């Protein structure tokens, strides 16, 4: 589904991502874990086209998208749920679902279906997103990406700032999406949450992948966890 090959991404004059390679298989959830500041968001932004890589490639279903403009990448089926949600404060919930809407690849997401997934949003369709709670904003951000009918979702620390109950809920939703055929690249600091939903785990440090394994393996591997995640 998604392949990242030897990616090098800079931010200003410093290299943040220094030769990363990973894959997200069709219909799977891949998680990238690492401490604060290792470059996880830079990686996501590079794939989404917001910060084009200086070297390396990103392939979506075999097609290179590395240096396309961000809106082109979105149209080709990459959906972004950014860190901190970043909803549009002047738009109401309904408009969020309109602005990102795109049909045609048969996944069948539309505003109605999103509202079915997040019924709490139904009562507040005309509320401006800037005034919503963190949890509601998380739902709006996810919905905004979903109506684009993306082939792959990029999710940057979606559990951040959410109450434990909502984090559970989020985990269930991700598994539901996966069952529906979605592929997800998940970047997280919340280890337990990531391990619960991922099919494959990558550990990142200083802009590189330093370890990869199945979630169960990592659960048992205290040495690796402590070395790269400081747990």
């Amino acid at each position, binding site marked *: 589904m998604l392949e990242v090959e030897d990616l090098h991404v800079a931010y200003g004059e410093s290299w943040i991502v220094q030769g990363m390679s990973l894959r997200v298989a069709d219909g799977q959830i891949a998680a990238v874990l690492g401490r604060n500041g290792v470059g996880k968001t830079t990686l996501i932004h590079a794939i989404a086209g*917001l910060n084009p890589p200086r070297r390396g490639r990103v392939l979506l279903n075999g097609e290179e998208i590395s240096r396309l403009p961000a809106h082109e990448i979105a149209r080709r089926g990459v959906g972004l749920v950014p860190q901190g949600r970043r909803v*549009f404060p*002047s738009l109401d919930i309904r408009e969020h679902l309109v602005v990102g809407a795109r049909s045609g690849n048969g996944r069948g997401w539309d505003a109605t279906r999103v509202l079915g997934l997040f019924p709490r949003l139904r009562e507040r369709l005309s509320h401006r997103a800037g005034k919503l709670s963190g949890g509601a904003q998380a739902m709006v951000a996810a919905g905004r990406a979903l109506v684009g009918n993306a082939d792959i979702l990029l999710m940057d620390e979606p559990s951040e700032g959410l109450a434990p109950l909502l984090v559970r809920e989020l985990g269930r939703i991700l598994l539901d999406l996966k069952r529906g055929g979605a592929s997800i690249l998940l970047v997280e600091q919340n280890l337990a949450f990531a391990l619960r939903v991922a099919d494959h785990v990558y550990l990142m440090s200083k802009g590189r992948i330093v370890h990869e394994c199945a979630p169960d393996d990592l659960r048992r591997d205290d040495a690796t966890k402590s070395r790269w995640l400081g747990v």
Partner: protein
Amino acid sequence: MTFWAIQTLNGVSFGMLLFLLAAGLSLIFGLMKILNLAHGSYYALGTYVALSVVGWTGSFLLAAVAGMATVVVLGILMERVFLRRLPREELPQALLTFGFLLIVGDVSLWIWGGTPQTLPKPEVFAHSVRLGPLIFPSYRLFVIALGAVVGLALWFLQERTRLGAMLRAAIDDADIARATGINVSLLSTGVFAFGAALAALGGIVGGPLLGVYPGADFEILLLAFVVVIIGGLGSLKGAFFGGLLVGLLDNFGKALFPQAAMFTIFAPMAIILAVRPSGLFGAR
């Protein structure tokens, strides 16, 4: 009574013209953070072109279209070829757009000469209308109506359409808007061209009332600045109410206190700056 009514009408119609200019300026700034000093050129050039076309064809409508089209082309050229390549800082943008202001102004002087000229009113509005004891030129009423219609249309476009939502999203967070599939680059050029067209429309519609002459571009630019300072840069409501306010103040000022020069506009501007620097409807 007649005096007040006429002055109010004049002030409101002038205010509508200011709204058209300020709306374009504000839209462009809101999305692209560009302060476009050449906005005054769009106003004047559109009018000059319309003047020529009306001379050749006799059709006000055709002249209006031609004037707006010329300015749209100029705007797109400025945005795509020049402004896009500049760093996103106020000063280089101001200097570049000011350079265009100078060039267009001087070339216009060369082509159309220095004598003040006015556009002829369209035939259909050449008469006056009687409302009770008062007699108003119908053209002024047309200008007011046009301004109100454009204002409503802009509001509707911005608040109730998908395009408007995309625009507001791009203003809120351009990067995430892009990642949501919105072509912010195309939107920017479109907004720039649209803002230019509005300025030209203001000039053409104002042509029969204010005329066009060397220096008109500076004068109207300055008034547009005062409108957005008072109303708030980036706000459509601010452009509308600010425009009305400035139009009325300027008109009554000239009528009642001709010696006060620019103080009638200066005073409220200074008050706003002292009390609420971001303008009446500007973002805090």
